[in-house]
Structures are given as C-alpha cells and as structure tokens.
C-alpha cells in the first residue's frame, strides 16, 4: 500500500534529521533494494517494545496490558539473541513512554541489520508480520523522515518472508500484511512489526496457545531468534 505524505515544510525539516540518522559511510548503490546485501562486519538487531508509560496499548486476556507484554517479550528475545552472539539494541528497558520518532532515532543510530517492532493483540490468530506500506524507493542522500523506510521496504519484505517461513516451519500460524504504523516508516533498516496474537481461537482450545502461555511465548521467541540467525547468515553471503 502506498501513501501520500504530509506537509512539504515538515518533510524538508525532517529530511535533514533523517540525513543525520541515516547510516553514513555506505555506498548508495549498496543500499539499493536491487543490490545484494553487504557482508556485515557487525550484526545488530533492534528490538522495539511497543507502547509504554501512559500509552498502554491493547488490553489483553486477563487484563494484562500490551506495554507489559511487549517489554517482557523483548527481554526474553534479547536474551536468546545475545546467547547467539548478536548485538541487541532496545528502544526501552522499562515502563517508560517513548514516542515514535525517538524509537526510529534509536534504531537508525544503531545502524541495525534487522529491526523488530514488538506488539501484541487479542484479535486474530498466531503471529502477524507487518511491513511498511510505503512504496519501494531508491536511497536518497536526504530522505524524508516520514518515508525513510521506503528505501528499505524490499529488504523488510525479505526479512518478513524469512520470519514467515521460520514461524510456519515451527507450526505457528502467520499473517503477512502491510500497514502504516507510526515509527517504522522512519526507520532506516529492514523493519518488521511483529504482532503476537493467541495461537488458537480464544475459548476453543484451553490447552495452550494463549498469549499468557509461557510455552507459547518461548516457542515464538525461539522461532524469531532462529530466523534472525538465518538472516545474519544470508546477509553475510556475498
């Protein structure tokens, strides 16, 4: 899905900001969606636990708040990734309010090879993988802040495809989609919003697969870690 953007004045201002946060020292051709991925000397993953502070997010089963779920899941996934030798940057480590621009700024400063925005919802089934709805675009020296992700959409789609295949290989239902989500459109890295929903329809199967089921959370986290490890391997190949 494509979008038309906002005011020209704001874009002009944020173009400068995006240029500051954009990865420096890389050849523009190397960032082109059609170019092969560069071999990474360092492999950084950004975990963005959505919501926080006054922004509670969705109310989940049992009255749990989405902001608490995403923070706990981020900590769990960070441990798994660190154990696999990956460098992890998180946008928040506590119940604090972090706005969308600040999250994108943290991700862009990290110069990450993969960025996951973690969400949770009581609607739907399984794991929902969403990438930006921006149309793919070539890399510009000065990218508009609001649409900086456009140059990375193709890589984001590839990352979502890998996450999809790994999750399905682990018998987790997956829905792929594109959306306009504040924050991810400004990230200059392959970015996927991961929304975790109950594995089974609520009330139909009480044996497991609910959001508060630790086994289900561990299962999803292990699958995501495995996918990010594979992404690292793929990215290293010339």
């Amino acid at each position: 899905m494509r979008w038309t953007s906002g005011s020209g004045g704001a874009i002009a201002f944020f173009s400068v900001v995006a240029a500051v946060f954009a990865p420096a020292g890389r050849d523009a051709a190397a960032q082109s969606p059609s170019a092969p991925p560069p071999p990474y000397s360092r492999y950084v993953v950004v975990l963005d636990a959505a919501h926080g502070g006054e922004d509670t997010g969705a109310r989940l089963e049992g009255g749990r708040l989405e902001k608490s779920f995403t923070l706990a899941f981020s900590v769990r996934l960070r441990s798994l990734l660190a154990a696999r030798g990956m460098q992890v940057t998180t946008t928040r480590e506590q119940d604090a309010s972090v706005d969308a621009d600040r999250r994108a700024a943290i991700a862009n400063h990290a110069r990450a090879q993969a960025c996951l925005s973690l969400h949770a919802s009581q609607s739907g089934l399984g794991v929902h993988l969403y990438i930006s709805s921006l149309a793919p675009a070539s890399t510009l020296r000065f990218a508009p802040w609001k649409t900086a992700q456009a140059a990375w959409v193709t890589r984001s789609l590839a990352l979502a495809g890998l996450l999809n295949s790994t999750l399905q290989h682990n018998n987790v239902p997956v829905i792929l989609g594109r959306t306009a989500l504040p924050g991810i459109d400004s990230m200059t890295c392959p970015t996927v919003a991961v929304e975790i929903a109950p594995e089974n329809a609520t009330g139909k199967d009480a044996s497991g697969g609910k959001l508060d089921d630790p086994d289900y959370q561990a299962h999803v986290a292990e699958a995501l870690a495995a996918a990010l490890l594979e992404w690292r391997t793929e990215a290293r190949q010339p």
Partner: protein
Amino acid sequence: MIPRYQKILFVILLAASLAMGGVLWYLLDRAHQRLLTGQDSAPTRAPQVAPAEQATLLVANDADGSLVAQVQSLPLPADPGARARAVLGKLLDLYAAEGSTHPVQGGAVSIAQVFLLAAPESKPAASQGAQVRPVAASRASSGANGPLLAVVNFTSNFAAGHPSGIETETLTLLSICGTLRANLPRVAEVRFLIDGQQHPTLAGHADLTRTYLTAEAAPGEGAKP
C-alpha cells in the same frame, strides 16, 4: 320583597351564563376534533427514500487477515455522500453483529459523516494554496469525472471501542477503503477523522494522519503483500 326588575335581571344573567357555557363547550369540542384530525394526517410510516440496490462490501476476517467481497441489498440514496455513508454504515453494522469475523462495536452510527471532495492534484506552485476543494467548485478544472477524496468522520465512541492491534485496525481501514472503491469508483483517496479532528492513530496502531489509496485495498491485494 325582591323587586320585579331584579328577578328579571337574575333570569337574564342566568340564561346568559348558560348560553356562554354552552358556547365554550362547543368551541372546546371543536378544537379537540381539529387536534385529532391533525394527528390523523401525520405519516404513520417512514417514507421510502431510496430503492434497494446491490452494494459490494469488503468484509474483513481477523482469522486470516483477508478482505472478502460480499454483496448486500440495501436502500442507497442517489447523493454520493449519503450513498457512501449508507454503504459504510451497513459494513459497520456487519462488524457489530454477533458472530462477526471482524468484531467492532458501534455499528452504522459510528460514521458521523462522509464528505466527498475533489482529490488534490499536482498543480503549479501558484495554485497550491488549498489542499482540497469542494466538488462543485473544482468541476470546471478537473471535470465531473475526476478522482474524489473521501473524508470519513468517525465518532469518538467508535475509536474508543475499537479493538487495539495492528491487524484489526488495518483491516478496518482497508475494508472501508475497499468498500468505497467498490461502490464509488471515483473515490481514489480516503482520509479519516475522529469527531472532526485528525488523530494520530485509530486505536493505538494504524496511522490516521495519512491519506489512504483505495486502489491498494482491492480484494486479494490490500491486506497481503
């Protein structure tokens, strides 16, 4: 001893009082009859404002993230704005019904208004003062068949009661865009307001500050990359 003239005066006054009472009673009865007659002439059935027509609704399904086209028969006004509101009202009624594949509270009353405006077009810098222009005012330059921008104004109760989540919010917006496109092909872009104001998100996730393109919400395309 009462004088004779006083007796005659008493009888005359008594007769006048009785006559006036009779007249008043008659007038009261006549007013009551007139009131009843007026009530009888009031319509007892709502007039049929529009004939029933077939409308295509793109109904969301949370289980698989899809949009499925569904044909419904409902009265559709001739005015495009009212027609858009009627179609979207029916869509939200389906979502509010029990057993919905995309449960969202509120129903048809969640759509406060739908405005149709001429879609902004690429213009020389000198004429870019207004982002959108009313249809009637822009027909001379863009033609009567130019693309339209639909502005959908939700009530705040709808946003407050909408389930929070990327998938559910995205599907709501895409199904509205797809439904507008299916029934009003000239609608190319959609913007969303809540109580007449721009809001950052619908229920914490889907961005409402952007303009959505209806072409991207066609069945089989929109929800899945």
